[in-house]
């Protein structure tokens, strides 16, 4: 494998030394571009109390291309689909090479605090979130209990 760019080394060091509160991101032992991520469900959100596993991968042309991020833990959220893919602008057309892993993780945490059903990825979830928010929130809490609290 090609030598790790200085940029990735520095980012990784900083993530370990000053981690983002509520988020842990640890590079895989076998691949320094692959991170095991755990995001704590934000307070006062339907995801509170849950621990959500994600995978984050830095592609070959990172940081010119955005990191690839996916939820592994099942989550009931209008901007996250069944495969765990995330609808987040900075992961797509709003990506800038000067953004970092840290900024991406913070944005994902913010997305859990403030779901945006007007820009949906999971259409059925977004639909319910719009027409019956309290039922949608009940579902989200239920999924959090079922899938994000066991281990």
């Amino acid at each position: 494998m090609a030598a790790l760019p200085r940029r990735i080394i520095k980012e990784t060091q900083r993530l370990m030394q000053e981690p983002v509160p509520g988020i842990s991101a640890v590079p895989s032992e076998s691949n320094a571009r692959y991170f095991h991520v755990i995001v704590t469900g934000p307070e006062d959100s339907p995801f509170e109390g849950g621990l959500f596993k994600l995978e984050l991968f830095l592609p070959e042309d990172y940081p010119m291309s955005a990191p690839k991020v996916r939820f592994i833990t099942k989550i009931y959220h209008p901007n996250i689909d069944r495969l765990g893919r995330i609808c987040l602008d900075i992961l797509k057309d709003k990506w800038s090479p000067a953004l970092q892993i840290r900024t991406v993780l913070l944005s994902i945490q913010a997305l859990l605090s403030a779901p945006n059903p007007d820009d949906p990825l999971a259409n059925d979830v977004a639909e319910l979130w719009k027409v019956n928010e309290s039922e949608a929130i009940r579902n989200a809490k239920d999924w959090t209990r079922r899938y994000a609290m066991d281990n």
Partner: protein
Amino acid sequence: MSAESDMEYSDNDGDEYDYYGEVDDCDMDSVDQSKTDPEYFLFSCLRVEEVEKLLNESIELLSNSLQITPSLAKVILHAYEWNAQEIINKYKENPNEVLIFSRVKSCVPSTPGNSNGSHCAVCANTTLLQKFSALACGHYFCNDCWAMHFEVQIMQGVSNTIQCMAPECEVRAPEDFVLSHVTKPSVRDRYQQFMFKDHVKSHPQLRFCPGPNCQWLFRAWVREGARRVECQGCELLTCFSCGAPHHAPTDCITIRLWLTKCADDSETANYISANTKDCPKCQICIEKNGGCNHMQCGSCRHDFCWVCLGDWKCHGSEYYECSRYKEDPNLASDSQHAQAREALKKYLHYYERWENHARSLKLEEQTLACLKSRINQKVMAGEGTWIDWQYLWDSAKLLKRCRYTLQYTYPFAYYMDNGPRKELFEYQQAQLEAEIENLSWKVERAETTDRGDLENQMDIAEKRRTTLLKDFLDININNASSSKV
């Protein structure tokens, strides 16, 4: 020969026909069509070099009058859809506004320190200050990072709209800036190809011919309604407004709905595409190898309609009902299931006819090719000149034009609301269909058909076509709402 076609020949310099064997140039389209053809539309076919010249004229004009680099002129022209005069006027009033609108400048005052000192925020490396550069926004990054950024963007197909690397900065990188960083020849080539495509796409007067591997472009001045442009290179008929295959009398929105629907339902409709059917009288298997839908069984000589398998005698023009879909009158009271079945039946009715005419067009294309070589043989054998056989060629071309329009009447009818207007439309459609099948029958037997008879049939078919278009093509009528969805 009709009065109209007499005119057409006398308008032409008849002498030239004998000296120039070019058949393609001497069809009936060469007269003033603006009066006779409801689909008439002024446009030109251009080659890539001609379009480049056209674009360069605008670039030069803007770069000279605003005293800016051609690269910056390109960014601005792209943003203003190539309206150089508008840009010049606006620039005189407020240059800043023009530069911000076209994203040459940032709308927020630049925040320096994105990379501080000689430290690059993207690669986290420290290099000499001379190796840094920035766009008008003042966001400095090292040249290696710029080069990598541009390469990644270009390989993704981005060209005119490549942005600065700073987060949330939307300032665009002009061509000279990009090319001063990108060194790989293959990437530079790709960039320039994408730039050209992007320029054409952003230019309201230009459009690529969508024909496969076709290099021609169209230029025209109106971009609304079903507008027919014919490619000089591949002869494809395209709608200039929406880029779909030309679709009059159907409008641009409706044809998109229809084509999407057909693609979605292609499985259901597949069985229709069979090329063989059984003769309704003697049950012998008959293969369709011509475009004409008036079939005659080779075994029992029964005349029947390929589309509905009805007796051809009942397709007499006044009572021609094959093209019309008859809805079940009890529909409203039926169950949802029955309604769904009825909806499918209705769709299949129109789809079957749409698809069938498309296939007829292909088959008649072959007829046309055969005809061309047969005429050639006759001329070579001294049986008359090209001009003597011109009418055969004309008849086949006219048949193609008529059937093409007929094909596109089916999506139009499918989406039409029931009512007197639809009744009128379906009446005219049936008339056109009947005359086209008559014409097709005669064209397939052209050499044994009387010339006057054939020319008379051509005249009737074309009249039916233009009448329908005059009444229903929405660029010719003010009240097109009944055909809109």
